[in-house]
């Protein structure tokens, strides 16, 4: 479980960074999205990886912290997702505006000289 999760985070973050460093603005935005997934998974994993335990206190269960998943990272991830979604949407608008102004999808607004 830990291995799969860490591999997933690693692959997402690695691909994200590679795309982020590419010259096309569309690649940059996809890279940013991939990094945001990796970050969200990472925050989630910081509440310790547990299976089959509820994050909300259940009166049927004993009052023992080990019976529950940590609810805080889940709340943080929710906030982070919303913020990342909003900023990515905004970035998309800027990207399209830049494309419209410069006529190219290069991040610098002009093609690199060959």
């Amino acid at each position, binding site marked *: 479980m830990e291995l799969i999760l860490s591999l997933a985070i690693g692959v997402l973050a690695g691909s994200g960074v590679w795309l982020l460093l590419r010259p096309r603005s569309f690649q940059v935005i996809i890279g940013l999205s991939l990094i945001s997934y990796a970050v969200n998974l990472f925050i989630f994993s910081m509440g310790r990886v547990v299976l089959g335990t509820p994050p909300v206190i259940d009166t049927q269960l004993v009052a023992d912290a080990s019976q529950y998943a940590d609810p805080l990272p889940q709340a943080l991830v929710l906030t982070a997702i919303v913020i990342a979604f909003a900023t990515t949407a905004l*970035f998309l608008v*800027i990207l399209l505006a830049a494309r419209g102004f410069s006529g190219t999808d290069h991040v610098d*607004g002009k093609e690199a000289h060959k």
Partner: protein
Amino acid sequence: MTGWMQHLPILPVVIPLICGALMLVIRDGNRRGRLTLGFVSIAGQSATAIALLGLATGYLPSDWPHGVGVYLLGDWPAPFGIVAVVDRLSVIMLLLTSTLGLAAWIYATARWDRAGVHFHPLYQFLLMGLNGAFLTGDLFNLFVFFEVLLAASYGLALHGSGRARVSAGLHYVAVNLVASFLLLIAMAMIYGVTGSLNMADLAARAGELSGPDRRLFESGAAILGVAFLIKAAAWPLNFWLPATYANACAPVAAIFMIMTKVGVYAMLRIGSLLLPTGAPAAFGGEWMFPLGIATLAFGIIGLIAAPQPERQASYCAIISSGTLFAALGMPGVTLTGPALFYLVTSVLALGAFFLLLEMVERTQAFGADLLAVSLEAFDLEDPESPDSSDDVVGVAIPAAMAFLGLSFVACALLIAGLPPMSGFVAKFTLLSAAVQTAEGTPGTGTWLLMGFVIFSGLACIIALGRTGIRLFWSVEDTIVPRLRLSEAGPVSLLIFTTIAMSIWAGPIMRYLDQTADYLGSPSAYINAVLTQHPGRDVAPEALP
């Protein structure tokens, strides 16, 4: 302290939030309504900041221990609930925000708020994010308020549109999104190790960590530091700054001056809390000082090389960040007090300078390449043409050229740090404190700091002197612009504030030194936050 007074600490966040939201309801055409709301909001924030200053210093009666006011949102005790904390440091930043906010806002109402939609709501949200970042007592809310102010700043940086702005905005947004992800990663790591995000609680728990946990915590803190350094424009993380600031419209660039200082504030706040248990890298001198010196060097080179006045002002902002980092990270000496004085002065001076530059450029003949950005903003319409609405509204001030020239000289003196302005007081106290309190003879660090700070002043004189000569003396067909009171007023307000700072430098310096002492021993902050009891009745065993 009962009644409505106990809710004062949260007002700097609530007022702009409500006013900004109300503005969205008002039609964009109803300018008078938006202006009224904007003024009410900024006046309210200034009044709150002054009242909080009174409470934190003890001029007003309060039950705040050591001048630290803790506001429990939702009335849950820390570290479980979210807290807003007012202390001497955050009060200074709140006051600075509202002063600069007022000046830039008045300037914007003269013409710039009409260059695009939703200027006023975005401006309020920017102020809300700034105030929130200065008030919050936990890391995650620091991230949230950073995002609030950044989201608003993305909108404002693009205000007026145009190719140069959008292109610079693309880089600005991408860099800041990456910085936000770093902030999240750092926060998650710190939470994973310590199990807390409350800054006071973190400071208490960090000392108990050892072995691998401590190393993980240090790595988390280092990533946190990198994220803050990106916001604070430390070299080599500041290449986004000159293009963004130089292309933003004048009032926006002016208010952006305080945004880099949010990064400095965050470094200072978290650094001071973690210091007693061993400051992690990036918050300690061994990293901050060289970074500061490198930032200074980069700023100096950029300043001398920059052709446009706006770019020069942007490099001055980088120099100011570099000076602050070098001073705060100076090994062996605590220069926090003078550094805070320098921070306030440089924010006010650079804010005034950005506002002034736009007015100065109107003296240049129409079509000069310096105006290209503004032209695009106005859809290639001549901003000085008689049929544009600018020349009709408002009261024009007499002796426009004299005003511009004098203000330019005042700003240049302030930024370079020459007498009689407060920039000189700031740099002088900084350097004299560095020399005096160094143990024994001043070390290499002191001489490095001294050399670079003085040399940066010289570079400012060279660059700004050259620009001044070009703008005021060597142009043959200078147009005498019509300046309205609402444009000249804010610049005078900022400059006179700095003059007042140099007149009352003594009391202000004493206050800032007390702030530095208070930051040096963070137990007052930690105790105040962790022992604050909820207002409602809680069973004693439920309290931490």
